[in-house]
């Protein structure tokens, strides 16, 4: 990893030069919220955006896509949207989210649909100062040490730019004259100050040590029923979570009956049908059971298997749930504090 400097006024010029690598995507303003969109005009990028409605997972496991087209006796895979792309403005929590998806989709059983999209995409991180819904410090996902090609850290009139991969190095070379390698003592000072400022801004600070133990003890807690009374089973929490990745598959036949497509669509363990099996048995018919599963996965099962929670503290569930059920409230409830629903 190497550190460079880029003047703030040169950012747009640099973003424009990235288009020679592939499509440039970044957060843009959408009403009160933000969404990753293709940047026809680089000045549309919302540098102030903290969290988009849907995390960058949408680029690698789109909400719905066709895996392949089949016709009698043959099939051909369709990688419709696999093309070189640069994602700019990904915050550390979302980079951690992608690294979690990588463990699931690239590790033991590589998913070709995920892999092809991932390999064609450059990840350009961007630093941020948290708001009152961020809890990345609690999940230890507030900083990145890898998982990106370039990472931009804003320091007043300039960016410190970390090069995290050989692809990142190539991307710098697309317009190398804009970058400087001169890191001064004052830059280091400023960076350390900035880190202290960022860390001091977290309003949500939880000690997640031993969370699996607490979850285990809370298996029969009345908390789950209380939450279930309020839960709408709408699935929004799963859809906006950077690490939720469940999907369903269905074949959609053409009217000729001889051909069609196999579709993948996001699914959610909050849906009643999720744990329904052949023969009509449902393993998690009660809403409380499904809520419990969701949070057990985030705060217990994943920790047991991978050594970290599958919550990256991005705050999207806090932003999204119409009835205020979210990971922060659940942690409060599990720790015996009052839950505000």
């Amino acid at each position, binding site marked *: 990893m190497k550190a460079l400097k880029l003047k703030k006024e040169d950012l747009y010029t640099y973003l424009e030069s990235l288009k020679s690598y592939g499509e440039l995507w970044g957060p843009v303003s959408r009403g009160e919220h933000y969404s990753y969109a293709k940047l026809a005009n680089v000045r549309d990028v919302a540098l102030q955006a903290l969290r988009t409605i849907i995390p960058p997972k949408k680029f690698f496991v789109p909400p719905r896509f066709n895996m392949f087209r089949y016709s009698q006796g043959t099939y051909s895979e369709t990688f419709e949207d696999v093309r070189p792309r640069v994602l700019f403005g990904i915050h550390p929590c979302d980079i951690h989210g992608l690294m979690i998806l990588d463990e699931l989709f690239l590790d033991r059983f590589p998913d070709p649909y995920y892999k092809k999209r991932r390999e064609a995409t450059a990840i350009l991180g961007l630093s941020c100062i948290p708001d009152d819904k961020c809890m990345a410090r609690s999940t230890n996902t507030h900083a990145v040490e890898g998982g990106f090609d370039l990472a931009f850290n804003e320091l007043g009139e300039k960016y410190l730019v970390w090069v995290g991969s050989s692809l990142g190095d190539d991307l710098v070379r697309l317009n190398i004259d804009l970058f400087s390698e001169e890191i001064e003592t004052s830059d280091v000072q400023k960076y350390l100050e900035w880190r202290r400022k960022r860390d001091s801004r977290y309003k949500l600070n939880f000690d997640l040590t031993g969370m699996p133990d607490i979850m285990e003890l809370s298996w029969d807690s009345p908390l789950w029923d209380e939450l279930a009374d309020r839960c709408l089973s709408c699935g*929004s929490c799963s*859809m906006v979570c950077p690490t939720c990745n469940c999907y369903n598959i269905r074949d959609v036949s053409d009217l000729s009956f001889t051909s069609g497509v196999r579709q993948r669509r996001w699914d959610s363990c909050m849906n009643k049908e999720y744990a329904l099996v052949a023969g009509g048995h449902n393993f998690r018919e009660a809403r409380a059971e499904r809520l419990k599963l969701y949070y057990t996965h985030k705060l217990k099962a994943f920790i047991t298997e991978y050594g970290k929670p599958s919550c990256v503290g991005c705050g999207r569930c806090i932003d999204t749930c*119409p009835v205020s059920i979210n990971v922060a409230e659940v942690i409060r409830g599990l720790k015996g504090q009052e839950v505000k629903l």
Partner: protein
Amino acid sequence: MGMMASKTQAAKPKVGFYGFTGCAGDLLAILHCENELLDIFNAVDVRSFLMASSEVHDDEELDISFLEGSITTDHQLESLADIRKRSKILVAIGSCACFGGPQAARLGYGDWKERFKKVYGAVKHTVAKPFESHPVDEYVKVDYHIPGCPIDRYQFFFALTRLAQGMSVELTTFPVCSECKWNENECLLLNAQLCLGPVTAGGCDSRCPSHNLPCIGCWGPAAEANVASEIDLLKERNFSSEEIVSKLRLFGGAAMVRRFADLLGIKAEEPARKPRPKKVREPIVAGKAKKRASTKKPKAKSRTKKR
């Protein structure tokens, strides 16, 4: 066409399309599929579709029948019984057939006769005897429900291709909100709008919220609608009970009233089920059905039109 076509003709599933009380929007939605219309008529052998052709064969056994509209007269009840008897699979299409539609929105509000009089005055029924509007499954066994106002063409194609190939149909049962998030819409409930997304079945691709309009529930209740929580949430947003209940009833129809009668402030037993025609045996069909399959049927009349 020619030899090959006539050879496969025999294997094509026989299908009928029928309309009862509704605006005909669902049958129209099918006819509006200009690009796929020839494919539909090639895929199945359409024996009856009055809106498309005056040549109907209504005395034949059918593999699949698609029914639009709610049941609200004695004549319709007879036709319905006849169609049920002739169909291996019967599919209710559109919210009127599935839930009773807006014409069932006042179900359980006092006596139907009183309501009728209020709208139409003291009229004599000469053509048919009307009664409270009910969804199709109030009277006969319905194998599949395809909701929507109107139905979504792709959901219809999906069901048609599945049924025609002898497979079951699994339509979307989760609420509109999931699709709303797929489309990356801002949540209208968080914007203090009266949105019924969380209690309404998806499958519409969150069409209205994607255009910044709150969901009005036209696809009927989701599989596991938490109506109590939705009502609480809307009350917190300062909507009145009357406003909320009338929105829930508008398209939720009989299904909403029966499932959530206590929440909607009416006695569950109040929505009387009438009229009760003579009992007849139901044909036994494979496929999913609602528990409330009734076994009432009047004497069937054949309504064949001879050319």
